[in-house]
């Protein structure tokens, strides 16, 4: 069972839910937590554990061969990402703009742009009290979140397939990276809050997940801060409400310390129970 946790915007409690759910779930089943918020992976703040494996994710970028190049100047015009720049008698490659499409490399008439491996990020596998935790971190300055997410999913398919439950902490938003993270999930939990912002962002996320055709449900965080509009929306759209997490200052305090919430706050423990039993019935 692959479960993705996503949200229309950041700061809704996505990572907190993913981490708490994973730690709670592993008490009864084998569980894998994957942090795919590759630009800002924060799951590791809550889950440390022992290092099992570290894998360098790579992609290919062109490597300019000055001796072979005839300076014909075609490659910069082919590259629609502006990753190749001709400066006088030099071709410069901008690694952070390259999408690894191979066009320049394979079309270069002088074969002066062979592809070479370049670091994309790091996939780290840790084990924390019986929980497998994989964190995927994009190299600073790079923007290619989606390829790293795909590689991370391929990595866990190859090395870590045997878990009862996989929980994916997806990147926020509804852009490319979020789609890459959730598109192969069996079920998506959309987490939001009962405010106009939360409702607005939830609607966008719902549209996206529906377009992808993946079954999904909602968890409402910070219940009590706003109004009931979001619950009316869920009802109207027949979106299952898996759980509500109450709004308490104590939660923000525990979060800021990196503490495990469900062990301290009974309502969160109950919410997690509800979510897990819902997921259990899906199998």
């Amino acid at each position: 069972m692959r479960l993705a946790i996503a949200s229309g915007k950041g700061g809704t409690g996505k990572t907190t839910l993913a981490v708490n759910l994973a730690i709670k779930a592993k008490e009864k089943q084998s569980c894998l937590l994957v942090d795919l918020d590759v630009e800002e992976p924060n799951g590791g703040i809550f889950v440390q554990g022992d290092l099992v494996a570290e894998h360098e994710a790579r992609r290919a970028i062109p490597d300019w061969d000055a001796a072979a190049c005839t300076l014909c100047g075609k490659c910069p015009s082919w590259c629609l990402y502006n990753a190749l720049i001709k400066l006088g008698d030099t071709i410069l490659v901008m690694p952070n703009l390259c999408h690894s499409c191979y066009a320049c490399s394979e079309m270069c008439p002088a074969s002066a742009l062979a592809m070479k491996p370049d670091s994309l990020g790091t996939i780290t596998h840790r084990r924390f009290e019986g929980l497998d935790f994989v964190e995927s971190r994009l190299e600073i300055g790079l923007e290619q979140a989606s390829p790293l997410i795909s590689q991370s999913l391929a990595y866990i398919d190859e090395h870590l397939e045997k878990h009862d439950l996989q929980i994916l902490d997806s990147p926020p938003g509804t852009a490319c990276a979020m789609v890459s993270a959730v598109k192969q999930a069996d079920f998506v939990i959309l987490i939001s809050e009962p405010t106009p912002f939360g409702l607005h962002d939830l609607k966008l996320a719902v549209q996206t997940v529906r377009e992808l055709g993946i079954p999904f449900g909602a968890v409402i965080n910070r219940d009590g801060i706003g109004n009931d509009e979001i619950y009316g929306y869920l009802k109207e759209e027949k979106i299952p409400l898996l759980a509500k997490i109450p709004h308490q200052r104590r939660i923000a305090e525990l979060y800021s310390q990196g503490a495990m919430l469900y062990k301290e706050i009974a309502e969160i423990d109950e919410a997690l129970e509800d979510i897990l039993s819902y997921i259990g019935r899906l199998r």
Partner: protein
Amino acid sequence: MKEIVIISGKGGTGKTSFCAALAQHLQDDLVVADCDVDAADLHLIFEPHNSLATDFYSGVLAHIDPLRCIDCGICAEKCRFDAISNASGQYTVDAVDCEGCGYCYHLCPENAISLKEQMVGQYMSSETRFECTLVHARLGIGADNSGKLVAKVKAIAKDTAKDQGKSYLIVDGSPGIGCPVIASLSGADYVIMVTEASQSGVSDLRRIWELVKMFQIPGALIINKADINPTVTKQLHSFAKKEKILLLPEISYSDDFPKAISMGQSILETNPARWQPVISEIWKAIKERI
């Protein structure tokens, strides 16, 4: 006219709430640009109307002309994004997977592939229930924010501010450290970073500051929810001191933030007695610097 950009590394730090409060505090002497296009929320408070919308095109998508295609399959074989298949008996491009690199366009022996500019969203200039103009944008699903869109939104906002003779342009900046945030920062006179007193708040602040430093734009820091974790707040203080970042008055944890959002208000409307002095003091400190 001075351009002030407000950014935060992670979501949920109160950046948008602060933007709205600042906009209200400055009354009619500003134009606001919402460049946080992926989670554009300012309009929920500003209630834009009389919008002037323009379609926004960015990047390309490959399109195969079935009448010209001879089923050679070269495009499908060479596409690194597995975006071309003939599952339906006809070679077609998957719009979600296509990265718009244009390689197939060059390869096709029959010139059957064209690259079509993609309409990815809209940007608009609107009147608001506050006295200022809001320039904002809306993107379609799966579409990424880009430096181009941010630059466009900012350019319109800037021109509007000049035409209207306003003193300030307040920009709600994009998150992350990529092209959109670079375009958000580029041209700014001043940067305000909003963070929260948590571990993730600290690591995100470090990342964005690296970027701001590169542009050599003077910056100030607001610590939101400063009282929930005094240890972290102290860490933030020493970071600011070391990096010569101006520390603005802190904001303590308050239910007024979610309450304001839930009512579609700025915190100055929800609880003026409490927040008016805080925002005034913050603005005074900023104004001295610009």
